[in-house]
């Protein structure tokens, strides 16, 4: 199929569309984000029937679909469940490569959250490593109100 262009001058058209979205976080995420902004507290929700505390918090239990969830504060310290080091500077990567992404299970939560891991050499990150949240000085009720996680004790 080396001759697919034979007799064809392929024309290309560029998009002029820009679709800027804004997303309403919803009541459950908003409560989490306000607590994060105003009190530097990390809140999950717990399903008593399944005995699981979810982070991010859920309005319904994803396992049993129960709507009777109770709010729980979880620790700002936790354990690295898994991680990777993104080495390439993709346009969609909001930071300068290399970037360490980690799945972190905070103490008291049964699910992990995704965040940056800083303050450690990319070659020295280990699964099972203990980390704690570093809160941002510039807070705007976003996940980035946690600036990153850093190894505990540093």
């Amino acid at each position: 199929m080396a001759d697919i262009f034979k007799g064809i001058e392929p024309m290309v058209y560029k998009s002029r569309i820009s679709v800027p979205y804004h997303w309403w976080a919803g009541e459950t995420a908003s409560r989490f984000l306000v607590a994060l902004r105003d009190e530097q507290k990390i809140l999950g929700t717990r399903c008593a029937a399944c005995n699981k505390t979810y982070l991010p918090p859920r309005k319904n239990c994803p396992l049993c679909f129960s709507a009777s969830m109770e709010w729980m504060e979880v620790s700002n310290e936790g354990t690295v469940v898994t991680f990777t080091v993104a080495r390439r500077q993709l346009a969609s990567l909001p930071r300068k490569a290399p970037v360490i992404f980690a799945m972190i299970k905070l103490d008291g939560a049964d699910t992990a959250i995704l965040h940056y891991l800083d303050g450690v050499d990319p070659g020295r990150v280990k699964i099972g490593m203990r980390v704690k949240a570093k809160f941002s000085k510039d807070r705007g009720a976003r996940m980035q109100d946690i600036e990153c996680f850093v190894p505990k004790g540093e």
Partner: protein
Amino acid sequence: MAKRVAIVGTGQTFHKSHRPDVNGQELINEAVRAALADSGLKMDDIDAVIIGNMDHFEGINYVDCWSVDGSGATMKPIFKITTGGTTGCTIAIGGYHLVASGAFDRVLVIGWEKNSESDTSGAITTAFDPVWDRLVFAGAISGLAAEAQAYMARYGATDKDGARVSVRDRKHALNNPHAQLRKEVTLDEVLASPMLADPIHLLDVCPRTDGACAVIMASEDVAEKICKSPDWIWGTGNRHPYAYLGDADYGRLTSMKRASTEIFKKAGIKEPRKQINVIELYQPYSFAGIIWIEDMGIVEPGKGAEYIGSGATDMGGELPINPSGGVISCNPIGATGLIRCAEAAMQVMGKAEGRQVPDVNFAVSTGFGGCWWTDMVLHGKKKPNY
């Protein structure tokens, strides 16, 4: 009682990184004409059409309507299904359901993508939750890398084990004229290729591709009149567990375990490793070729690397995987899952030419989507006994 369903024809385009010689409709048309020719049917014979892709890659929202000049679906029932990476397999399952319901006898299923028309990583990022996951994440590779890291820590696998899978698939691609990348690589070349996201090297992952695939399904009332030895669908499974990225059990593909357990039980398959003759695995990166066959029950957890290393999944081995060269050799995303389905069907029908595995009784094809989803189809030579 559901009707039994068979695949009676398949068609694929020539998949390339860029196909600027055709627009999306023309690309779709190429696959549709190939599938019609393969089955000996005409567009008039088709009762309904299912089409799928990933909207953000082309920025075209109403693909079902927009594509009718290419798909032939003008004034026919046409349905769009889109489920991210799993799309190609989900549309196959959708086609199966349409025919099994008894509402339609002959259904055309089309998966396509022109990945060259946008920023693949950016478009894939739209699959993640905007509030929780998207702001600190980018593309698909980092999530896969996190899976590989967790698996390696749990079972002691190395990046060499991953590279071995890549060597296999890239070698198999030499037998497939439709594969985009057809160049053999060595273990050392994989390991020396640039690190993208630890532990994934450039040669561990799939390319991005322009391509389309079409599959024609028929009910048991007409299938054997169209095709003497069709590919019978024995079961389909579909598990989409994702809520947020941190919910997954990294290092295990739970959705694969659930889908395969359901299908094998239904079909009475007790020893999948011995009873299945070939697998077309939607394996977007090498380590998945180790991890996910464990979840499918082919080998015990932690034994995947040893099994791959033994050559058992190479052509001529006990259970060849990805005779087509797989996703690592060719990945037009919305078509990719349907290509797995078509390739498995070709194996069962004895039409796989240079990549044919001998005496295929059962074949498995799968789809994988960004947030740890699995779609799966079991194909068989005999008509299901249920």
